[in-house]
Each structure stands twice: as structure tokens, then as C-alpha cells.
């Protein structure tokens, strides 16, 4: 078999998660649940200043408190902090209460510095600089194709708009953190992470320990969304506290407030857009000037970083004449990190909004205008499938025409993402009693990776997925890389496929049976002696691809007197390549839609210009979508 089976028995069907029972019963152990013998609580003291020169930090009052076993500074003073929430020091003790007392006992001698937390202000030369020796605004990224000015002159219609997207926080429900034990000989870490290998590398580097002495595990983790690569500063601090405490394990999980300050966000955007089209709807000219902030380090200072506040423009459309100028401006706030399709929601919001303006100006149906200009054959079909399911034609009427204060509205948009696979490895073990184990050094972020591995192995061996034991989230397993950018399924599945193929060849030869799968399985494996079959496999070309497309249509109600918006229904048509588990794929898409609703309607990190603090670092004031906010969602998987 050189590729995926043509008539699969398992692939693409609806499968239950193999780890569902341990998750619903509360017995799944996350990094934050780990309590190795002698464990200590860890907590971080953060800067209350958005900018300050830290002269001295006195840890002695903290260390003298009962129950405190270790305290460390984040850096050796003097050093500069550049956002409210930057790490100053950390403590480890017998209880959370002891740590809280210790944090307030630490004496910090600091000179507050001038700061700026508003993007527009930060652009001006007269405002304080985040870094003394460089302007807040980076060099603009400029791109031009064709003859933009001439194209605008010949366009029949030109529309302009200003669109703004706010900073969004990841707010993974399990906060960032680790349970770490550092002895003179080795480091053991239970991490809440999207990348066990990068956590291992970070801890080894931080503590000067060789890689073979660092063991990182993450069997379950409570959400990452792009923000959980690497050990993080909190991982390094936990490791130092453990060493300082004579090798006792330290569980250092951030608080909910910390999550709003220091562990990533989606950059803001302020987009000035101009679009020109011919009468027939053909887009001919596009101009974008945008700026946004990715925090103090402009997104460059973090692992898996979003790389500034830029985004693809004009997103999914191909306009022959375009001019794009994008600027990332530093402010005194926590740095951005990759967040669920970094750059794309900002890109989509600005571009699809101006396309709607153009449809209105031309008197054209927005779906028709999109089909005319979308270069993707797949999406053009998806618009038609979605329009039919949504009853677009019956529902569309010109904006503002519904009666009364509560207006009905519908909208549509297209999307893309790269994805693709990379060099994962996997190991399959077939035991003489017929049981199967698959090991892979990947991690399951809630996407169902563990189950996906079982499905692939079950397909290859013609067994039931429940018969496959899957072990992941351990750096002693075959390496698999980080789980980000929608690459996990496309990396892991081909490696498991390859390992299963190699295992089957070995089993055929050991058993003397040409086809040991399915009903022959028990008799074939019974012929194995003491040693199991152990076969490795690696990712290879031809079993995964990249570049997905999707289209969504939304129906909303807006009360024009109160401003209350209710999303009633979303139809989504999505191509995601080979679907391995239909049920979990729909779950993922539901989740993306709901996170998108949060971004569009509810979520915004608010910084106070006067004090530089995050004003809404909790769920009372930073609103995540809840049960009442979820519309009817109709997902069509292609």
C-alpha cells in the first residue's frame, strides 16, 4: 500500500475519543494536577509598573516566612522591565497562602520610567520609547504589485474604509506552567505545552543540563491556541526554585491574572483600506496601510511568536494592482504569540469588510462578488454549497431594509490556512498476545491526536481503534515536533502509517502469513516468541498536503437601540484534506467558530493609558463566549 486506502474502514468515520472516559471522570492528570512527593507551590512576583528600572530586589523577608523553601529573582538587578506583569521574582513554599504572603514581603527598589500603551500614541516621536535605542515603530513592510494609482484612476467604483481589530488574549483554561523537579543528575518536568521537545530544550539550556538528562511529559494539557511552546520564563523560574529548594519538585502554574499579562496575545490592527473595481465586479486595485502592536517585543521575543502585527493582504483575493504598507509598533505591554491562525482573523476582517462595502457600492450580491474574485476553485464551490444550505438568496436583502429596531443581517467570508506535515516519527509495538502499542512524542491539545493515532493504526491492521494503546506526550518517545499551525495530524498520521507498514512487513515475515491483519491477527501474533515486533516509521511525502479552504455564512440580529448582537446561525463549509475523525473534526471547527465569535463581539484586552495596567485580566471583564452566546452551527466537511 503506497497511500491511504481507497475504501477506508476507519478513516473519515465518526470515532469517540479514546481518552474521553478519563477526561469526563476527572482522572486525566494535567501538569497542574501533578503532586510528586514533597512538591512545593510556586508563584511569580510581577512588575506593577509598565516600565521601570529595577535597582534591587530583597528576597530575605520572603525567605524568612514560615513555609517558604526557595526564592529567586527573574534577573540580576539592575534590569529594566518593559510591561506591567513582567517577571521580577518567584517563590516556592508549602502552600499557596505561604507563597502569597511571601510575594508581598519581597522588597523591590525600582525607578518607574515613562511608558506608552496606546498604539497611535506610540507611533509619535514625542512619546516615550519602549526600547531606549530604537523608535517604537519598526521599519514598515512594503509590497507593491502592478500600477496601483493608474488602476484606481480607471476603476469604476472605489470604496474606502478604516477597520480596527483589538488585542485578543488566548486564555487557555489551564494556565501556563509546569511541575518541575531538578536534582543534580536530572530534570523531570510535567508541562502544559504544545511542544514537549521545545520545553526539554529550554529547560536544558536554562539549567545547563545535557538533553539526555531532561525528561518532559505532557499526556494531557488544557489548551494552548498557539501560546504554549517552550518552557517559558515560568518554566525556567520553576526549575531554579526546585534546584534552590534542594531538588524538591515545584508546581508553578500561572494565575488567571498572569495569563492576561505575560503569555501572549493576538496583535491589534488599525487598517486603512481602499479597493477599486470595474462595473462587473472585477477587483482591480487595492491599497492597505496598517499598523498594530504585538507588545513590547513586537512578537519577536517569544517562541512560536506571531512575528509582528502584519498579516496577509489582500488575504485570499488576487488583485492585480496592490500596495501594502504594514507597521508594527512596540508598546509597554506583554508580547504577542501565535494565536489560532496568526494574522488571518485580522486579515479577513479588514478585507471581507471592504469587499462588502464594494458589493454595496456596485449593487452586487456579496456572494456573487466573492465568487467572481476568489482564485480558489474549492472556495468558489463552497460558496455555492453554503448559499444553498443557508438559503442565502432568500435571506439577502439590501442593508438597513428590515423593519423595526431589531435588524437582521447576514454575511459571508472565505478563509485559508497552510497546515502541512513535517518530520514526525512513531513507533509501533505488536506484542505476542496481539495487543498493539503506538508511541509518538507528540502532544494532544484537545484536537484528538491520541485518538487519531489509534484510528490510523486500526485502519492499517484492520483492528478496532479501541484495541490500540496509544502513548504520547513523552520526550523518551520518537520525536514529533511541536503542535502548532495545524500541522499535527498531517505530521503524525503519515509517521504512524509508515511505522504500521514496517511492523506489518516484520509480522508477515515472523509469522509466515502473507496477510496478518484483521481476522488473521491473533494467529499471526501468536507465532511471535518472547520479543514483540518493534517498528519505527517516519513522515514521508505523499500522505499529507497543505492549503485548506473554507467558507462561512452568518445570520445575526442587531438591536439598533441597545446595541445587543445575537448570532443566530452559522453555516460552515470546510475542506481540511483527509478527515481522520469526522466527529473530532467537527468539534474543532465548532471551536474555531466560537472563538471567532468571541473575537468579533466580546473579547478585548484593555490597557489603561494612565497607569499602563491591563484593566480586564479576569473573566468578569474579559468576556469569553459562554453557553448563551453559541448559535446554531452547521458544519459541512468536504
Amino acid at each position: 500500500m503506497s497511500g491511504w486506502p481507497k475504501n477506508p474502514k476507519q478513516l473519515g468515520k465518526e470515532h469517540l475519543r479514546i481518552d474521553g472516559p478519563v477526561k469526563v471522570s476527572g482522572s486525566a492528570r494535567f501538569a497542574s494536577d501533578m503532586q510528586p512527593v514533597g512538591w512545593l507551590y510556586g508563584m511569580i512576583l510581577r512588575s506593577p509598573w509598565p516600565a521601570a528600572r529595577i535597582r534591587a530586589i530583597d528576597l530575605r523577608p520572603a525567605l524568612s516566612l514560615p513555609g517558604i523553601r526557595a526564592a529567586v529573582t527573574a534577573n540580576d538587578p539592575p534590569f529594566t522591565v518593559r510591561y506591567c506583569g513582567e517577571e521580577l521574582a518567584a517563590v516556592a513554599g508549602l502552600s499557596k497562602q505561604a507563597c502569597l504572603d511571601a510575594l508581598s514581603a519581597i522588597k523591590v527598589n525600582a525607578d518607574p520610567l515613562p511608558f506608552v500603551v496606546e498604539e497611535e500614541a506610540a507611533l509619535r516621536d514625542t512619546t516615550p520609547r519602549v526600547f531606549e535605542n530604537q523608535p517604537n515603530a519598526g521599519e514598515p513592510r512594503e509590497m507593491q504589485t502592478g500600477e496601483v494609482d493608474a488602476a484606481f484612476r480607471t476603476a469604476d467604483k472605489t470604496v474606502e474604509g478604516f477597520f480596527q481589530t483589538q488585542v485578543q488574549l488566548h486564555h487557555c483554561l489551564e494556565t501556563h506552567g509546569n511541575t518541575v523537579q531538578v536534582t543534580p543528575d536530572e530534570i523531570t518536568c510535567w508541562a502544559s505545552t504544545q511542544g514537549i521537545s521545545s520545553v526539554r530544550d529550554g529547560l536544558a539550556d536554562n539549567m545547563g543540563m545535557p538533553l539526555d538528562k531532561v525528561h518532559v511529559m505532557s499526556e494531557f494539557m488544557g489548551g494552548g491556541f498557539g501560546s504554549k511552546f517552550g518552557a517559558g520564563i515560568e518554566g525556567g523560574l520553576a526549575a531554579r526554585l526546585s534546584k534552590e529548594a534542594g531538588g524538591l519538585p515545584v508546581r508553578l502554574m500561572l494565575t488567571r491574572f498572569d495569563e492576561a499579562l505575560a503569555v501572549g496575545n493576538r496583535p491589534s490592527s488599525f487598517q486603512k483600506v481602499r479597493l477599486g473595481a470595474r462595473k462587473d465586479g472585477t477587483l482591480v486595485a487595492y491599497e492597505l496601510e496598517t499598523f498594530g502592536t504585538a507588545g513590547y517585543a513586537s512578537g519577536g521575543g517569544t517562541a512560536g511568536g506571531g512575528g509582528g502585527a502584519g498579516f496577509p493582504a489582500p488575504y485570499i483575493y488576487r488583485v492585480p494592482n496592490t500596495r501594502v504598507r504594514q507597521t508594527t509598533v512596540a508598546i509597554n505591554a506583554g508580547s504577542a504569540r501565535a494565536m489560532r491562525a496568526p494574522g488571518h482573523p485580522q486579515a479577513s476582517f479588514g478585507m471581507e469588510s471592504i469587499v462588502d462595502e464594494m458589493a454595496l457600492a456596485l449593487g452586487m450580491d456579496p456572494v456573487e462578488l466573492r465568487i467572481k474574485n476568489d482564485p480558489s476553485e474549492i472556495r468558489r464551490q463552497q460558496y455555492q454549497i453554503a448559499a444553498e444550505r443557508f438559503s442565502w438568496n432568500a435571506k439577502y436583502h439590501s442593508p438597513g431594509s428590515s423593519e423595526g429596531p431589531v435588524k437582521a443581517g447576514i454575511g459571508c467570508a472565505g478563509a485559508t490556512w497552510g497546515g502541512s506535515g513535517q518530520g514526525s516519527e512513531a513507533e509501533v509495538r505488536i506484542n505476542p498476545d496481539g495487543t498493539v502499542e503506538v508511541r509518538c512524542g507528540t502532544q494532544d491539545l484537545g484536537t484528538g491526536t491520541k485518538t487519531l493515532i489509534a484510528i490510523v493504526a486500526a485502519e492499517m491492521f484492520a483492528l478496532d481503534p479501541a484495541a490500540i494503546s496509544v502513548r504520547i506526550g513523552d520526550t523518551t518517545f520518537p520525536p514529533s515536533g511541536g503542535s502548532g499551525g495545524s500541522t499535527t495530524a498531517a505530521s503524525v498520521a503519515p509517521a504512524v502509517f509508515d511505522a504500521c507498514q514496517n511492523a506489518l512487513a516484520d509480522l508477515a515475515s515472523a509469522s509466515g502469513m502473507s496477510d496478518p491483519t484483521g481476522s488473521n491477527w491473533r494467529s499471526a501474533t501468536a507465532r511471535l516468541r518472547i520479543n514483540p515486533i518493534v517498528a519505527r516509521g517516519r513522515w514521508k511525502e505523499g500522505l499529507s498536503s497543505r492549503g485548506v479552504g473554507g467558507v462561512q455564512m452568518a445570520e445575526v440580529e442587531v438591536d439598533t437601540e441597545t446595541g445587543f448582537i445575537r448570532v443566530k446561525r452559522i453555516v460552515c463549509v470546510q475542506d481540511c484534506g483527509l478527515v481522520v475523525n469526522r466527529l473530532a473534526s467537527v468539534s474543532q471547527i465548532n471551536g474555531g467558530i466560537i472563538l471567532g465569535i468571541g473575537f468579533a463581539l466580546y473579547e478585548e484586552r484593555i490597557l489603561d493609558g494612565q497607569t499602563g495596567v491591563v484593566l480586564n485580566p479576569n473573566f468578569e471583564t474579559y468576556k469569553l463566549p459562554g453557553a448563551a452566546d453559541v448559535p446554531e452551527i452547521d458544519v459541512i466537511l468536504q
Partner: protein
Amino acid sequence: MAGAIAKVTAAAQSVESLDDQKPVGPEAVKLILQVNGKRHEVEVEPRVTLLDVLRNRLQLTGAKEVCDRGTCGACTVLVNGQPVYSCMKLAVEMRAQEITTVEGIGDSLTPIQRAFVECDALMCGYCTPGFVMSLTALFRTKQDPTLEEIKKACSGNLCRCGTYPHIFRAAQRVAESGSSKT
């Protein structure tokens, strides 16, 4: 001023007489907690929450600490059958109360837990025990709740992965099957 103090004292006395408890703290005090049908003796400071005791003293880590201020529901447990945020209860308030955590709702998976698995009503799984407890409380009071009642029962729980549609479906499945003996 004296009047105000007198009022406070009177209030404190009335609480004391109601509770038959002396004011305690700030040092650690001994408590007996009744959790999942078992008696546990713990010694904690009065400022320690029920959630902290459950997770860190009794190793019942099904309830999660997510917001630690009563806004997300991940720490939901039952106190005398009622769903409560265990991060918003002090352990010292829990004397003589019957506490049930996700670990204690059944010897095997309950119908709502089974429905969660069957409907893929979980992704990362961190919020899951909290939703299970909120819905367990709902089904203990009503066998066949409507979708609106299901949503209301979950209105104090947050899920960042966006599992809600499948959670509603799982709860509806239990409501329809009428097998909600939890």
C-alpha cells in the same frame, strides 16, 4: 462609632449562635470534611478555599482551578446536592456539609458522562468535570430538561475550546433517553 461596633458585635454573636462556632483563625484550624461519603480531617487556615483543600490536600484534582474567583465553573462541586463554585467557598464553611466531587458521582460513568464521551462533548478536557457537575445537578432535579434549561444550567461554565454545541447535544441525549439516574 460605638453604635457601629455594637452592631457588628451583635451580628457576630448572632452568627455564632446560629453556627455554634467560635470565630477561628488566622492560624490553621482542624476541620472534618465529608467528601464523596468519606470523612477527612484536615488542618487549614480559614482563608483556604474548598477547592484548594480538595485539590491539594485530598488529591481530588477533577475540580480545576481556572479563574479562582467564581467566573468559569471549572471547580464546580455539589454541596448538599447544589452546584457551587468550590473556589468561592472557604473550607471552614464546609463543616457538616455533604460535598460531592466529580470523582464521587458514580462508581462507573454516569449517563451524562457517557453522553459526553458519545457526543464528543470535550476537547482539551480541562473544563469538562465542571460541566459534568453542573449538568449532574440539573438532572438530579429534572429528568427531561429543555435545551434552554440545559443552557441555563451551563451558563456558569466556560469552555475555551468551544465545545458547547456538543455539550448541549450530550445533555439533550440524556434528557431524551430518560436514563438520567445520576
